[in-house]
């Protein structure tokens, strides 16, 4: 039974500025990649955090069937947000503990909806630290940004 991995990354030129996101999806049987899919996209005026979120959202939304998947991001914002902060935000009606509206709330809600259909394990890796798949996700994110620069 193949296991699914999604490597996600965002990129932004200026913050805010033109940005892109990239996803490398791999189905692995042991260490062998049996199927691969990549997706990228971008926007003319956005932020790095929004691109990191959109990468994760697109990874999960692309999977039509309910799946068990590990999402590997280099964004502590995404990893901490989705595994920890989001529970409090939902309890507080999407307000932070300081009673302020959650930033990028529509993307967090979309991510919450997208992950509900799947069994997701979230992992964080340090970016630009020589992880080959993370480097490829970074290349995809920069490709996604290219038409908007």
């Amino acid at each position, binding site marked *: 039974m193949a296991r699914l991995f999604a490597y996600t990354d965002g990129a932004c030129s200026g913050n805010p500025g033109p940005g892109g996101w990239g996803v490398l999806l791999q189905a692995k049987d042991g260490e062998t990649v049996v*199927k*691969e899919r*990549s*997706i990228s*996209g971008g926007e003319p005026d956005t932020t790095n955090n929004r691109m990191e979120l959109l990468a994760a959202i697109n990874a999960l939304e692309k999977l039509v069937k309910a799946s068990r998947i590990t999402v590997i991001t280099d964004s502590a914002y995404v990893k901490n947000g989705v595994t920890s902060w989001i529970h409090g935000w939902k309890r507080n009606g999407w307000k932070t503990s300081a009673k302020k509206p959650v930033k990028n709330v529509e993307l967090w809600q979309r991510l919450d909806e997208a992950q509900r259909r799947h069994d997701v394990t979230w992992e964080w890796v340090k970016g630009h630290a020589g992880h080959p798949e993370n480097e490829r996700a970074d290349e*995809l994110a920069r490709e996604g940004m290219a038409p908007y620069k």
Partner: protein
Amino acid sequence: MPDERTIQVYSDRAADYAAFTKTDGAGRLLRGFIQRLQEGALVLDYGCGPGTDSALMMQAGLKVEALDATPAMVELAQSKGVNARLGTFFDLDAMARYDGIWASFSLLHAPRGDMPSHLDAIKRALKPGGHVQIAVKTGTGERRDSIGRLYTFYMPDDLCDLIRDAGLIVDEIHEGRDKGLDGGLANWVSVAAHG
């Protein structure tokens, strides 16, 4: 049958298109395709345009044959030393000849109804286990872009289904967005499969 107006646009703007597709080196998708093949493998560039990709594949140690329906494009490819000939997608009648077939943003100019025949021809022309990569713009329906080229659009899953219907096995699906010769942004999908 090929769309005469699309061929006319490519004839009139062959030099523009060659400049537009000019590149310092193989992009991510072409690099991936080349990596799947052995050195000296025989490849068909199916709808080669000005021969940009053909020349890069030759530099990477592949043998290349190329086909395009626009005479000016064939001439441009030949000027790069590419073994290119004039012909439509229907002129692919080889049997188990190629290790790889590269159809990059070419088959999107064929009518939807002809696509299954072209994919069958690809499957027949590939050696067993040979690799093919097909890129099109994504969407639905058919329409002309602002400079007159006729496009048939495919959703990624529909293109994969057609490729599977031809008896090929899908390995990779890549999706992105880029500017075209018409200046507009378009979403695209590139599917890697093998026979």
